[in-house]
């Protein structure tokens, strides 16, 4: 058995590389493509730090073999700002990124990329958020610094920003 030529669409650009099809998407993003924004936490699906969008759906890169997503569009935290800017040319940061900074929702920052991808998908999918929506959507995300209150506050703030801007 040998490595295969794998073609991936990551953050809007096509990337071609040699990889094992059963390699995790997390390994390929970080170790092959150098996109280290997606974090390697537990490699078992417990922590949510490696959340990326696969065809717009938040999923865990550590549980996804790269061969299973070759025809999908992958968005990582590095591409979140561009994704937002395509829809809102006035800013190249997603409101959730600005809200995390303004609310002090980042301490060590390790869980932040996963939190951002989950929260951005939530803001995109649900127009009028409740706290229950936020807590349910963040159920799979661990913050070792336990700064959950600021994180929830940041998502509330981003939801308001989005509503105001539209």
């Amino acid at each position: 058995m040998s490595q295969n030529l794998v073609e991936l669409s990551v953050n809007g650009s096509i990337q071609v590389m040699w990889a094992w099809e059963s390699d995790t998407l997390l390994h390929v993003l970080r170790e092959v493509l150098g996109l280290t924004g997606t974090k390697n936490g537990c490699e078992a699906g417990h922590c949510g730090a490696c959340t990326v969008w696969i065809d717009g759906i938040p999923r865990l890169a550590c549980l996804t073999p790269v061969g299973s997503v070759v025809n999908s569009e992958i968005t990582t935290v590095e591409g979140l700002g561009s994704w937002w800017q395509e829809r809102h040319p006035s800013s190249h940061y997603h409101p959730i990124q600005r809200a995390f900074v303004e609310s002090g929702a980042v301490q060590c920052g390790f869980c932040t990329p996963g939190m951002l991808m989950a929260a951005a998908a939530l803001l995109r999918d649900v127009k009028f958020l409740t706290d229950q929506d936020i807590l349910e959507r963040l159920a799979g995300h661990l913050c070792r610094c336990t700064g959950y209150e600021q994180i929830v506050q940041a998502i509330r703030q981003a939801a308001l920003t989005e509503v105001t801007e539209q």
Partner: protein
Amino acid sequence: MTRHPRLIKPSTTQDVTRLVKEAESKIFGGGTDLVPNRTWGLDTSGTWVQLGTVPETTMISIDEEGRWLIGAAVTLGVILEHPKISTLYPLLADAIRAVATPEIRNQATIGGNLCLDTRCRFRNQPPIWRSGLKPCFKSGGDHCYAAPASSRCVAIVSSDTAPALIALGARLKVQSTSGFRWIKTLDLYSGDGDRHLTLEPGEWIEAIRLPNFPPLGVFDKWRMRGSIDFPEVNVAVSVTQAKNSRTMRIVLGAMGPEPVRLREAEKLLGEGPWDPERLMHAVHTARDAVHPYDNGQIGVVGRKGAAEHILYRALKKLRIMMEEKGENA
């Protein structure tokens, strides 16, 4: 050293059957169980057969008799978002919501959840931890650390959807080289934690068929980490009222290598009015019906106590639902 299984994407059910018959091959649904097991050296299969490319396994449809069919490779997230399934089968929807987290539900499939590999705290550990012990039954050895007197593996089936589908009376479409057959969900499990499914080489689950007239039901689960965790115990109860009779299904999951139906409790609650005494009596029958071992996160006494607790909670909720529907409990 990490193994690198082949990932094959067949396009027909015949191709899947042929590939699954090969030695060392496994069905790949969403990978949420297989991939971490591979990472920890627990899964040593050489080929992963990805179901998501076979149309029959990715559809939610209705058969000619009006029964809903859910393809085995449909993700749990898609089932929850389906406009009809959640409304018609709230028992199944509750069980799915209890599975892991939104991200994992977006990836995990219902067939994968049914076939989830068994878990044990003496085996589901990093390789360096396991290297301190001689192999157990499931690792190719001849010993069980959870039950030293046992002659077979007692690892736990942790599926949340299995008890719900058993309580609903769902059937599974099993494909094989000789065609397909329908089996009851409970018949999928062998009772041996090492080879916990009754499927033979070459057999695989294509779809799940739900009943036309779903019974009234409740699902409940006990776990250590409320936001994401495998069950220490889960329960699904359902009731079908006819004019002069009542059919009960009470299923406890995650107590051992297979879900368990509490036949005595079903008989008790099917026969008479649900007064507090009868309810408690039915709940206490669980003590003799299930025999967990010390291989979960909490001890045996804790798991048995939790089982009785959530069974009582589920039955009380079911009684309220029956009263709201104007049925006599």
